C-alpha cells in the first residue's frame, strides 16, 4: 500500500472520466470517435500495472470498465432498427467531451489565478502584517445560519431537560434585542444565544435577528471568517467607530 504511493503520483486520476480522457488523449483519438476496443485494452493494461487496491478509486474504474464492456457488447449485437434514445455510447462520449472542455477551462482559470497572484493590491500587505487592522465585513444570512446550526449542535449535547410553558413571540424578542442594542450598543450573537434557556427561545431569537437583518434594522458583522458575529443597530456602527 505505501510503496505504491509513488506510483500513484505518476498516474494520478480523479474519477473515471479523468482516466478515460487520459487514455483517449494518449491514443490521440477524437473524443467524438472513440475506438472502444483500443481504449479497453489500454484500460486493461493500466489495471495490470497497478499493484494494490484502493477500493473507492477502483470502484469508479469498475464503473468505467463495465460501461466500456457494455458498449462493446452492444456493438457486437445487431442493433434494433428504431433507436430513439440517446445510446449509452453517445452518452459517455458526450460526458467525456464535456469533461474535456471543463479541463480546458480549469487550465485557463489556473493560468488566470497564477497571473493574478503576481499583482499586489492594497489590502494584501496590511492583511499579512502582524499589526493589521481587521477588515470588518458584513456577513450573509447564509453564514449566520451556519453559526446557528453549530450552536444548535452544541446545545444538543446538554442533557438538562427544562419544561417551561412560556411563549415567545418574535415581536417581543425583537424589542428585547433592540433594548440591549440601545443600552450596550452591540450584541454578541453567539454569546447571547448561548445564554437562552430553551431551544424554542433560541429559535425565536434567531428568527427575530434574521427578520431584523432583512428589514435593515440591524446589521450583522464579522471581523473575519470564523470570528464571532456581532450585531449592531443599522447606522449606529459607523458612529461607534
Amino acid at each position, binding site marked *: 500500500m505505501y510503496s505504491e504511493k509513488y506510483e500513484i503520483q505518476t498516474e494520478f486520476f*480523479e474519477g473515471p472520466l479523468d482516466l478515460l480522457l487520459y487514455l483517449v488523449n494518449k491514443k*490521440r483519438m477524437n473524443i467524438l470517435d472513440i475506438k472502444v476496443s483500443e481504449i479497453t485494452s489500454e484500460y486493461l493494461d493500466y489495471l495490470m500495472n497497478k499493484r494494490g487496491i484502493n477500493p473507492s478509486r477502483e470502484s469508479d474504474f469498475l464503473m468505467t470498465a463495465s460501461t466500456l464492456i457494455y458498449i462493446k457488447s452492444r456493438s457486437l449485437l445487431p442493433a434494433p432498427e428504431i433507436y430513439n434514445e440517446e445510446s449509452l455510447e453517445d452518452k459517455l462520449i458526450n*460526458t467525456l467531451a464535456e469533461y474535456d472542455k*471543463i479541463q*480546458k477551462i480549469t*487550465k485557463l482559470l489556473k493560468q*488566470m489565478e497564477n497571473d493574478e497572484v503576481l*499583482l499586489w*493590491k492594497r489590502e494584501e500587505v496590511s492583511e499579512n502584517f502582524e499589526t493589521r487592522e481587521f477588515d470588518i465585513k458584513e456577513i450573509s444570512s447564509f453564514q449566520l445560519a451556519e453559526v446557528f446550526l453549530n450552536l444548535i449542535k452544541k446545545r444538543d449535547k446538554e442533557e438538562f431537560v427544562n419544561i417551561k410553558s412560556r411563549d415567545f413571540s418574535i415581536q417581543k424578542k425583537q424589542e428585547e434585542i433592540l433594548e440591549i442594542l440601545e443600552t450596550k450598543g452591540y450584541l454578541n450573537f453567539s454569546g447571547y444565544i448561548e445564554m437562552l434557556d430553551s431551544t424554542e427561545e433560541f429559535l425565536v431569537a434567531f428568527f427575530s435577528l434574521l427578520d431584523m437583518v432583512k428589514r435593515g434594522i440591524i446589521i450583522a458583522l464579522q471581523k473575519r471568517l470564523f470570528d464571532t458575529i456581532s450585531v449592531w443597530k443599522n447606522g449606529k456602527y459607523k458612529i461607534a467607530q
Partner: protein
Amino acid sequence: MKEEKEFNIETIEQKTAFIESVLFVSKEPVEPEKIMTFLKCKNIKDFEEILSKLTDMYKDSERGIVLKRSGGGLQLVTKIEMHDLLNDFFKIKKTSTLTIPSLETLSIVSYKQPVTLAEISRLRGVNSVGPVKNLLQKKLIKISGRKRVPGLPALYSTTKEFLLYFGLNDISELPSIEELTEMFEEKEQPSLFKQIQSENG
C-alpha cells in the same frame, strides 16, 4: 447631514489627480460611475480620456503601479515585475490557493451557471460537495436560487469576488468554449496529466 461645499475641480489635470488619489486610498475596486457622479462628469468619453491618461502615465518604467479594471471597478495594483521583490520585502509568500478540484468546480459554475450540485458532480464524474463548500466559504460562488424540480436543489453562480480573484472585469470576458479549444488545440495535447504531476511532486 453632509455639508454641501463647493469644490473646484475644473481642469483635466485636477480630475486626473483626484481619481488617482481616490484609487490610491481604496482597498477595493471603485465603480467608475461613482467617481463620475462626484465629478459631475456626464460624458463617458471624457472620463475614459482621463483614465487612458493615467494608464499612459503608469507605463513609464519608473512607475511601480498600473491601473486595472476588475469586477467592474477601477483599482491600482503593482506591476507584475515587482512580484518577486515584494515577496522578498514583505516576507510574504503570495501564491495561488485553489486546488484542482476547486478550480474544476469553478470552471463548471462559471460556464454553466446557474448550476446544481448534482450537475457539477455529474460533469466532473466525482462527488463535488467538498469543493462546492470550500468555494462557498471563500465566497467565490453563491447560492443564487433554487431549481424548480423535486427537492428544490440549490443553484450556484459565481460572485463578484470570483471576478476580483481572477482579475476579470466582467464574466463575459471569459473566452467562449470555441476560443478555448483553439487556445489549447495545437500547443499541448496530453498535458493535463503533466500538470497534475508537477503539482503533486
